[in-house]
């Protein structure tokens, strides 16, 4: 009796949905290989705009912005993943405690407050305490808003790991630290890696908050791209966008695959719940 699940037209809408989601990205990726200087007339396939990104007049600006973006994403993802892992241990393994729901709300706060409000608030805060805007302020803002993105996969994974593993280790005279490091951490790893990768792309992709707290002169890749786009979409921007797009898709795919492989380990099936 498959009939009740089928609605005429729904399949078409679902296909159209994917088409809408991917068409602009595919079009830009294709046109980034356009050999012509004109944006829209096709002049044969070529890598000239990719070469332009690395050697053209804007190469230095994009290079510096890429360096800033990558180092900030690396540090922000590392710090926020460490903070989120600690928080997940307390929230998932700590039982009921006072302030638990308040802490939960706090962790999710960066997801609920509109980005532009966070951006304004952070800028005003830094200006009030007299911290000059630049690399450091961008980094602090990124660590903060990356926490929930790192937290969600780690907490989800931790919830699926039965306590019996740690208890067995403790029964066999492992210290609490040993039980964590030798037993729980390896089981938790897929969640941690997945959270790390997500935090990394969220940091790499952020535009609105970065644009407010970066100050003059400092650029990350998205703000550099925005600056170029404001003067008109140029083919080299499409090439650099395509590369960033490829990096994001690669990271999401990795995060997804690691998470899925992790779900097949016995620890996840041994959950008494």
């Amino acid at each position, binding site marked *: 009796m498959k009939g009740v699940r089928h609605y005429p037209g729904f399949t078409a809408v*679902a296909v159209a949905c994917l088409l809408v989601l991917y068409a602009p990205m595919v079009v830009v990726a294709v046109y980034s290989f356009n050999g012509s200087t004109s944006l829209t007339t096709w002049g044969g396939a070529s890598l000239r705009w990719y070469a332009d990104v690395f050697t053209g007049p804007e190469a230095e600006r994009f290079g510096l912005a890429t360096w800033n973006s990558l180092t900030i994403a690396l540090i922000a993802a590392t710090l926020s993943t460490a903070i989120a892992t600690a928080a997940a241990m307390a929230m998932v393994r700590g039982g009921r405690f006072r302030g638990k729901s308040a802490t939960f709300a706090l962790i999710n706060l960066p997801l609920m407050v509109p980005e532009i409000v966070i951006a304004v608030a952070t800028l005003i805060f830094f200006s009030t305490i007299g911290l000059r805007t630049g690399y450091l302020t961008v980094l602090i803002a990124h660590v903060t808003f990356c926490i929930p993105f790192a937290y969600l996969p780690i907490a989800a994974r931790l919830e699926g790991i039965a306590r019996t593993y740690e208890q067995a280790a403790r029964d066999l005279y492992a210290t609490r630290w040993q039980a964590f490091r030798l037993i729980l951490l390896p089981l938790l790893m897929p969640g941690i890696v997945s959270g790390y990768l997500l935090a990394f792309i969220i940091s790499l992709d952020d535009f609105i908050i970065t644009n407010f707290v970066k100050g003059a002169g400092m650029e990350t890749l998205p703000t550099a791209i925005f600056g170029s786009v404001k003067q008109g979409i140029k083919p080299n921007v499409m090439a650099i966008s395509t590369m960033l797009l490829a990096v994001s898709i690669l990271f999401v795919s990795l995060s997804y695959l690691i998470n899925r492989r992790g779900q097949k380990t016995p620890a996840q099936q041994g959950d008494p719940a």
Partner: protein
Amino acid sequence: MARGAPGDRSLLAPLLLPTWAVIGLFMVVPVAVMSLYSFLTREFRGGVDWTFTLSAYDQFFFDRGLFGDERPRLEWAYISIFWRSIWQAAVATVLCLLVGFPTAWFIATRPARSRAVWLFLVTVPYWVNLLIRTVSLRFLLRDTGPLNQALMGLGLIDVPLPIVNTNFAVQVGLFYSYLPFMVLPIYAAVERYDFALSEAAADLYASRWTALREVVLPLVKPGIVAGCLLVFVPSLGAFLAPDLLGGAKTFMIGSLIDEQIKGSQGNWPFGAAVAVILMTLVLIALLLYARAITRERPA
């Protein structure tokens, strides 16, 4: 059995301290400082004077004439920007719902294996840089862009459709930005739906569409409400879609805040006040949502 070993609690504070410190200091405190800022006096050198005033809110809601001595009248300039933002966000939400529901339903009725692939495909765009996606959309929709070229090549139109720089372009941009947010919660709701109920409805001579309206929709409503909220809230404060796809006539809240904080004619207390008003609207939407789900539960 599920209780932790005694002494676990001693670790709670050190484990949570970093989270409390970072989010507390760099998000809760800044939002508080910003709210305070909205009550300060603007200094003409661009800074603020630490005297309490309601002038930022007064400027938002009332017009007192050029010299500030006339009887206050309601100021429509800013209210209409909010009204437009709410309208744009609402249209985008409806568009997302019209496309998102059938898509979520379709995915939920696939076999488990292909379901994962479909879900993944819907999620990927969310993780891709929103700036790049919006720029791509602008490129696609431009007067001389691939879409218009294709339509003209097919002989469907003679002159390019002017899409970019209209309200419609902004709505499409918001729809495109936040569509995955609509699909995922509805999918989660449909996935839990027991299709035997649809079969029962069919046995009782309900048509497909009657069953959808009378049986399915009430049961998956929490997912629909969550999806609408997840699309509406970010759309309301969106900056990129109106900035890159719209023109001067499509100014939204995000652009107004940006102009007041970053523009050369900026007014920080006023920008802060606009952000506080936006945050209040979002809070109201969240509270309405919380009320809606607590009312669903006991039923």
